[in-house]
């Protein structure tokens, strides 16, 4: 059995004391980040990338993945006890979770969230293990044209789901692509947009932009309005365990949430927030006690919490098998891996089996650790909210500067960090999303390279992007994803047009 061998290899990597430590550190930090409102997984991973500098890539990805799915666990705790979602993907959990806590059933709500996350996380890892190698093997057939259009589709899918305005999100994407063009053009050796500054020849540092746009801007957002709302916390009464009745109601919700989250949020690239809303919608249609949803039904906690974890696991499939980030968070992880000199993609499964299988094994371990960390220690996590906001702000400043400085030992990078922090704040005020900027920045170079290689193959003809079936498919996917907000208007317009002609 090939995958038992692989899995054995994976566990032999993941069970070394040092990697166990990084998995634990990752899920611990992830839970902290999940609990803290305002600091999402993107900000958290960007801030903590510098810790991974000295690490081998396997330990680095184990740590980052731990933060990623740990944050999905942590987000639910504050949704349930404080009615404040720690992450955008835990907004839905507030609806029923807080109601349950108000009725004195905080324990079962927390347990359902943790168990749902565990089931979904383990399922996503299992699927990654079973289909990952096949997807990667299939993707090995992709040539540059397929890669170019696949990246284009990834870019447009994420962009179309970022922020309130499509125009602003697309504008953010082009800014990211523009940032990617700074520095020496690798193919021709010609410097672009460097204005004679030698430090710009390598381009803008990914970490400076990421930490500036996500972490430092968060500082300024909080400083602009430091008045801290005193949040009423609900105590955990009674046991944490689920009754037989709870299990009977939650189990189908776990399954529905896991499946919908994995396919909608993960494979389709819609992200964890959409996945949790989607699964809540399914519960509203399919749950046995659907009338109770919104008033403290356990299904309303079980399904979305399973869904957001499944989505996080699913997003890793894109990253590992195709080398394409399917979300803002995985874009940051891709940027970090590229900094460590590792190019994720289909070849990874063949060339770096210890990396891929080590990560997979660590995800099983990490999910189990989270279950243990979260249920008995839930009181401790809630205490984190006692940290005054201004101290948190000062610590984010400290970490941002520390991380950016250790990268190149350059104070010019610190100036750029400030500039991008201010820029990030202005963008937040204008409601322009920052995630597409990061995605554009990470994918820009890769896309340019793929496009040039494609045109080299076709001798300059752009037809190569539409004559190859998969390339055409990805291209259509890209078009569909950015035009879909306008479909209803087109539909209404068409109906009006034809309605006028047809007899009433």
């Amino acid at each position, binding site marked *: 059995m090939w995958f038992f061998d692989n899995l054995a290899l994976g566990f032999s990597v993941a069970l070394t004391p040092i990697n166990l430590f990084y998995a634990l550190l990752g899920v611990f930090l992830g839970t902290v980040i999940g609990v803290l409102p305002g600091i999402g997984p993107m900000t958290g991973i960007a801030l903590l990338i510098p*810790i991974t*500098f*000295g690490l081998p890539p396997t330990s680095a990805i184990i740590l980052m993945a731990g933060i990623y799915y740990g944050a999905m666990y942590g987000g639910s705790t504050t949704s349930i006890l404080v009615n404040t979602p720690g992450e*955008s*993907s835990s907004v839905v959990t507030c609806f029923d979770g807080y109601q349950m806590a108000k009725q004195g059933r905080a324990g079962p709500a927390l347990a359902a969230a943790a168990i749902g996350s565990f089931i979904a996380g383990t399922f996503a890892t299992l699927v990654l293990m079973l289909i990952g190698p096949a997807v990667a093997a299939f993707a090995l057939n992709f040539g540059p044209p397929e890669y170019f259009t696949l990246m284009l589709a990834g870019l447009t899918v994420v962009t179309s789901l*970022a*922020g*309130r*305005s499509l*125009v*602003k999100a697309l*504008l953010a994407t*082009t*800014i990211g*692509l*523009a940032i990617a*063009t700074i520095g020496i*053009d690798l*193919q*021709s*050796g*010609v*410097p*672009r*947009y460097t204005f004679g500054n030698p430090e710009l020849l390598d381009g803008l540092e990914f970490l400076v932009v990421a930490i500036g746009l996500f972490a430092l801007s968060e*500082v*300024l957002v909080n*400083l*602009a*309005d*430091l008045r801290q709302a005193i949040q009423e916390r609900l105590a955990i009464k009674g046991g944490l365990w689920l009754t037989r009745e709870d299990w009977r109601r939650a189990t189908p919700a776990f399954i529905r949430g896991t499946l919908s989250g994995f396919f909608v949020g993960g494979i389709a690239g819609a*992200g*964890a*927030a*959409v996945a949790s*809303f989607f699964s809540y919608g399914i519960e509203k249609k399919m749950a046995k006690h659907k009338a109770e949803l919104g008033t403290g039904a356990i299904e309303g906690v079980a399904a979305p919490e399973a869904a957001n974890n499944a989505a996080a696991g699913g997003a890793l499939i894109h990253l590992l098998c195709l080398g394409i980030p399917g979300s803002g968070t995985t874009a940051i992880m891709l940027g970090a891996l590229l900094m460590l000199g590792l190019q994720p993609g289909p070849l990874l499964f063949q060339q770096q089996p210890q990396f891929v299988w080590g990560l997979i094994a660590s995800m099983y371990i990490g999910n189990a650790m989270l279950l243990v960390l979260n249920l008995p220690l839930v009181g401790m996590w809630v205490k984190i909210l006692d940290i005054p906001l201004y*101290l948190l702000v*000062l610590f984010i*400043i*400290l970490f941002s*500067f*520390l991380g950016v*400085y*250790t990268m190149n030992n350059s*104070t010019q990078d610190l*100036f750029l960090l*400030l500039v991008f922090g*201010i820029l990030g704040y202005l963008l*937040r*005020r*204008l*409601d*322009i*999303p920052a995630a597409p900027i990061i995605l554009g920045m990470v994918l820009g170079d890769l896309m*340019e390279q793929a*496009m*040039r290689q494609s*045109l*080299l193959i076709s001798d*300059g003809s752009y037809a190569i992007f539409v004559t190859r079936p998969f390339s055409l498919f990805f291209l259509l996917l890209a078009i569909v994803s950015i035009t879909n907000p306008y479909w209803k208007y087109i539909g209404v317009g068409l109906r009006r047009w034809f309605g006028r002609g047809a007899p009433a």
Partner: protein
Amino acid sequence: MKENRIASVVFCLFALTYFALAFTTIAQPSVLQILGPDAFPKAIGVLMLILSGVYVLQSFRGLGREDETRAAIIGAEDKVGTHIEWKTIALMLGVMLVYVFLFEPLGYPIATFLMFVTGAAILDRRHWKRDTLIAAVASFGFYFTFSLVLRVQLPAGPLRWLGL
């Protein structure tokens, strides 16, 4: 909506500059290529011009109706309040700027300690004893963790003379 108008015009100007620089500052390589180094920047420039143009139109004619339900579903970030404590922001930006300047001359631990203490004094003065202690532990703690455990060299500043 004034902010959006200004921003849209700024974006438009930025796009124009970026586009123009693609023609003027990028040298042609000696070997002819199918897609030269200026092709991608020009394409991005055109896209950016179109999008910022649409943004200008939208911001001057009133932005389209925003669908808050959709925003919640896709997990869009909360809108930032327009209420601003300018004084706090300006002071803290000043502190960070000074921090950058002092980072190497004073060394990491001292510069960080000063940044933290000044920052805490600006933001909340009620717990200064506790905050000073936190600042000391954090700045020196991180310095020693990074230089001794992680072997990442941070500027030592005057501490160098103490052999630390």
